[in-house]
């Protein structure tokens, strides 16, 4: 499954970069994440619960590895998720670009191989559910970004 | 008091009262087949599409493979075995199926008979299109449906419009 898109964050690029490296923030932003902790340099492990079609709250053990980091411009991710209903494995590339108006444009492309029951029964829904999760996560990150900016501005 | 993790199930099946302690996740189809030994209800897909598992739930057709047994607590279930209590005498619908060769392997047949029992009770003089529509959610791989429709023609004793 190829999933790509753009999203505009309401904040400067460095702050967006910092946000994306913070597992605590990602854990809260990504829908269904029960736990996401750093298990090594540029490596995160955790547990997610995903609902796709007839499969509700399917548990996945996930490992995410960051690579090719060129702060604050770009990085790639290797994703490895495994659960009772199947697996999801792939990579994603993220680039961040400063916008003239103080915002940051994020471009992402990902190619994820899905297998197991989730592929054979949830097929029609995987892409739409993934997009929805992506959008929810990015919007949550954007809210956190603005909260941090406001906090800085008010000097706290 | 049932064992830990189990729930009490009290229901009426084919006119008889039954009580059992069951796991909440036990499917109604498995309860009927294994718990009560009523193996006439067949399981074809376990996701509610093929209709082989159709029973009557308070008189209305329902798919037992996507219901939990505990959902039937306090309700009345009728299975294929209720159409012929002695297991030998065929009711008019069953007789019509035999006359018209409306079954081959017979696996989908109980679900189709239960579906048709309710349908014909409410629609005693259907058109052919209405019969096919009523059957459209029951899959049969053997017959191509034609002799099933003819069986209904025979039992309604009027040519299908």
């Amino acid at each position, binding site marked *: 499954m190829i999933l790509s898109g753009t999203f505009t964050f309401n904040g400067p690029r460095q702050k967006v970069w910092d946000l994306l490296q913070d597992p605590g923030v990602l854990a809260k932003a990504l829908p269904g994440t029960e736990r996401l902790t750093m298990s090594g340099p540029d490596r995160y492990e955790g547990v997610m619960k995903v609902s796709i079609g007839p499969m509700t709250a399917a548990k996945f053990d996930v490992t995410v590895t960051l690579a090719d980091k060129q702060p604050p411009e770009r990085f790639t991710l290797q994703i490895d998720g495994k659960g009772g209903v199947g697996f999801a494995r792939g990579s994603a590339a993220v680039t961040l670009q400063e916008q003239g108006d103080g915002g940051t444009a994020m471009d992402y492309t990902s190619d994820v*191989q899905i297998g197991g*029951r989730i592929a*054979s029964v949830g097929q029609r829904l995987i892409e739409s559910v993934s997009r929805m999760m992506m959008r929810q996560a990015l919007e949550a990150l954007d809210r956190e970004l603005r909260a941090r900016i406001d906090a800085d501005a008010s000097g706290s | 008091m049932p064992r830990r993790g189990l729930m009490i199930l009290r229901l009426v099946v084919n006119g008889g009262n039954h009580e059992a302690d069951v796991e909440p996740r036990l499917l109604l189809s498995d309860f009927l087949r294994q718990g009560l030994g009523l193996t006439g209800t067949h399981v074809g897909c376990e996701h509610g599409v093929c209709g082989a598992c159709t029973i009557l739930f308070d008189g209305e057709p329902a798919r037992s493979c996507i219901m939990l047994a505990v959902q039937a607590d306090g309700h009345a279930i009728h299975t294929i075995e209720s159409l012929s209590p002695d297991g030998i005498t065929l009711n008019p619908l069953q007789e019509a199926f035999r006359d018209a*060769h409306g079954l081959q392997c017979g696996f989908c047949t109980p679900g189709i008979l239960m579906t048709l029992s309710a349908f014909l009770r409410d629609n005693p003089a259907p058109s052919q299109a209405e019969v096919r529509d009523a059957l459209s959610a*029951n899959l049969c791989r053997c*017959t191509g449906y034609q002799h099933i429709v003819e069986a209904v023609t025979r039992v309604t004793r009027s040519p299908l419009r």
Partner: protein
Amino acid sequence: MSPEARYVNARVRRNEDARLLTGRARFVDDVQLPGLLHVAFVRSEHAHGRLIKVDGAAARRRPGVVAVYTFDDLGEYGRPAPVLVPPPPISGLVFHPRTHRPLASGKVRYVGEPIAMIVAESRYLAEDAVRDVIVDVDPLDAVVDLEAALTAGAARVHDDLESNAAAHVVQRKGDYAAARDRADVIVARRFTYDRGAAAALENRCVLAQWDRQAEELTIWDTTQAPIPIRNGLASRLGLSESQVRVVAPFVGGGFGPKIMMFYPEELLVPWASIRLARPIKWTEDRQENFFATTQERGQLHDAEMALTRDGRILGIRDTFLFDTGAYDPYGLTIPINTQCTLLGPYDVPNYSSEFTAVFTNKTIVTPVRGAGRQHGVFVSERLLDLAARELGIDRVEIRKRNLLGPDRFPHNHEIMFQDSAPLVYDSGDYLPALEQAAATIGYAELVRQQAQRRSGTRRVGVGIACYVEGTGIGPYEGARVTVELSGKVRVATGVGTQGQGHYTVFAQVVADVLGVSVEDVQVITGDTREFQWGTGTFASRGAAVAGSACHAAAMSVREKIVALAASVLGAEPDRLEVAGGRVSVRGAADRTISLAQLAARANPLRGAVRPGTEPGLESTAYFGPDRGSTASGVHAMIVEVDVETAMVEVKRYVVVHDCGRIINPLLVEGQIHGGVAHGLGNAFYEQLVYDEQGQLLNASFMDYLLPTATDVPPIETAHRETPSPFNPIGLKGVGEAGCIPTGAAFAQAVEDALNIEILDIPLSPDRLFRLIQQAADR
């Protein structure tokens, strides 16, 4: 006096229906035994990969789990399955047998391949434990596309082979190259014909019980071939055949894949039952069925036909790829059927057919109703249609010009059929069938209206396609007929029954011979304790072969009846009548004896028995035809296509077919209806969709669409009879006939409605929509 035909060719109601209609019929999953354990399998989620580690420790610790087995537990039982059908002796044939092991070892080669078996107190607990098993797979690129599979550098399904080619076969007749040179027109196209799952409503089920005291193994199995299963399993498990009993009770549809053997589950469940000394059952669920039960899939054909300008076929050349899946235990039956059935009812003087079977990382392919015949029919029928268009000849007319006439039989096509005998058409009369089908559907009038039919949003098309089908092949079947002390008759035969009505059809044959009523004949099939010799139900051979064995056994019993009655009644045999369950002297109503009394006399408790007589009124007979006999037919259909939604509705469907003599016309119609429905499913609704990594994306009835009662039209059937010369009744097979030409007729009809070219089956609404758009753009 020879028997009177009262039942053969009559629309007799089925003996078995009462049990099925009341829910009393026993299917394998209905069997309950005390102490029964249940099985779930851990199956590969990857289509291709190295199996690094399988760890069942956590699963074993789960309460309720009795055992967890992996390949390492199997020892010598882990060896690969036998090749079920070795290929026929075609010269130059290349075949690389690669069969599956009961549990994966080293590599996994398709999604769903079994990796571990869990035995537990309930299926629910066993499935819980599946998630406890840790499977470590190093994924490899999956081999999915047939052409890509054969390129250099493609991942290899079997590492010890140089490529993914599983087989290569060439069959030739005459000299196609010379024919091509003489041709006025050559029509060449690439065709794809994809099929799908058999999707019998009953999933597979295996239940095994090892009786440790009697040292006997009983296996209930949803198999189409109980006897070979018994023999093979006995051998694999180190038992003698007599220690193993296989019972195929009522089976909910077969259609081919229930004959695969040995499915891993068929070996592992009995093996575990012996090991644990407990009865064990595995019931497949529908999702598993899409991976774990065999299926048919696609063929890719590059074919051409050389013709004269007046439409006479000079020759056909066909090169094709055949998807055999991850292993090839069933040999080359399907593609060889394709090669043979492509010739159809036509006079094809020169023929060159070449195929390469290709290993892919998908479920194993074995015959599904039709078994490769529809692919061949699609190619030749489409080529004829395209030639007709190019030459400006009517589609029915071009067929007429090429049909083999009734004086051309037996017709030897010189290439080899799946039964290892040369392809010979024994009998047939094709022209009247074609004319009857065309007349019934109103072909001539529809052709006249073609311009009108092709206008508006709802466009109407007519399609007509011919086929010839080899049926009733050997090697043999057997039957034992016994008159019991009650006067009723018992028939035992080795084939299994999955809805074909054997309990009635064989009873009809025997009832006619023995002068009893059909309800008084009890037929036992599918139990190796009752009958031990035979092969199984496949290739449209049940009635022709097992039915003929029943006939032969009954005739032998009739002779014994007459001989004994002659002695008892003191009359000459030719004055005796066998009717109404009695034997009577013609013209002397008081000199009569019932079959029940005769049966008692045939087994005396005292007195001497003359040497050379056998006790009782019982005979066993075997029947093996010289070769298969050719059935044939013509299908015609009218379709209506909505060009805005790309939905196709079949308005009328006509079948004119010839399956020789018919035992029960009601049942034959049922077989045809079911076959046509299956064929329509393949033409328009059904397709197994795999992604580039070999993941099946539609493994449920939500997304794999079977035709419903609103999709299948009423089917008009007409029978014609050219009796088979190979069995006494003159029977040919009909089980697969309905689905063989459906795709070809469908494509032609849609083409006729829309004036486009259809070279691929199935034709989904999506693909049709795009074809309509492309045509509109042109």
